[in-house]
């Protein structure tokens, strides 16, 4: 019993520590980036100024990414017409295998590839996957590290709020 208590306390502490680094992005302009997509075209985040953007940083080796990406695909299908832009950014160093993985997922939103540590550093990515929501002014309004059941509901609440602005 005591063992379980300390295990729970320790995991809570670690979860808190993992998330505490992430909120430093909140309220700040999203660091800009330009990356090449699966279709060979370059996309730049700042060119979506004026729209609500959901950016998901993922990797094929992160189990939560495999669960989260189809959820984001459904969100994109529903809210794309309302002005939401969903971007998936692979931070996998092996771009070829990341591309194969993404092709297999058959996602309907742009997938970009970054094999350098630059974006991970700019966005302080410490836990994968990581999802951020950027408002129409380019400001980070929501950050979520990891993915567990129920997180999609939080995404939807935030997306609806930002789309209404």
């Amino acid at each position, binding site marked *: 019993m005591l063992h379980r208590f300390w295990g729970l306390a320790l995991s809570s502490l670690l979860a808190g520590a993992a998330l505490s680094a992430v909120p430093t992005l909140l309220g700040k302009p999203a660091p800009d980036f*330009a990356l090449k997509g699966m279709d060979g075209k*370059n*996309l*730049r985040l700042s*060119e979506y100024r004026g729209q609500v953007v959901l950016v998901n940083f993922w990797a094929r080796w992160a189990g939560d990414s495999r669960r989260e990406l189809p959820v984001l695909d459904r969100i994109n299908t529903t809210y794309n017409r309302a002005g939401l832009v969903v971007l998936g950014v692979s931070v996998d160093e092996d771009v070829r295998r990341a591309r194969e993985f993404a092709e297999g997922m058959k996602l309907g939103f742009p997938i970009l590839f970054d094999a350098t540590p630059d974006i991970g550093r700019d966005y302080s990515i410490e836990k994968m996957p990581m999802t951020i929501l950027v408002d129409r002014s380019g400001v980070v309004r929501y950050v979520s590290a990891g993915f567990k059941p129920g997180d999609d509901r939080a995404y939807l609440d935030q997306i609806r709020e930002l789309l209404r602005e």
Partner: protein
Amino acid sequence: MALAWAVGAGGPIAVADAVAPPPSSTPAPAAAPTAAAPAQAGGTQGDAAPAAEAPAPGQAAADFKSLDQEVQGMKKDVIDLNKDLFVLQEELLFPANTQVAVYVSMDVGAFFALDSVTLKIDNKEVKNYLYTAREADSLLKGGVQELYLGNLKVGKHELVAFFTGKGPVERDYKRGATITFDKGVGAKYLELKITDRVTKHQPEFKIKDWE
């Protein structure tokens, strides 16, 4: 009054931080005096207190206009200050005696679609820039991009630029251009120019002093 400013990223100052909130004694709209008993109620309420003096609609509008002008003036001051701070930051970070700037311009038609430019100075990569369709289009329409701004010591330096894109017949294309230049005591401006070489049906890449 804390002044929060953001420079470099080109963002405007967070005006909300710099502008003091308007005084709370903003006159209420003309519909406000509901608590006062109407003076022409026929005298049925003998204990009616004298009606509170409500600001006339004209006065309220004038006060609002004055406040709006004041806020607009403060916003303009904040924007001017932001601009001055940005210029000062540039002068401090990139003083003229060490400043080097590299610009990109394009004058191509059919022979080259720009995808990226990589810049190396003295064998060290200083910039790798990916161009979106919108950015490449802007260059084609005559835009000039400040690709890199940095500091170099006085003396000889070598700049190498690699241009990646689609060449004639939609083939992948990568070319380099090199220049060795003398950095003097003043700021140095260089231009990477991409043009069509019609005689050879190829794009041409030049690096020259920017005039």
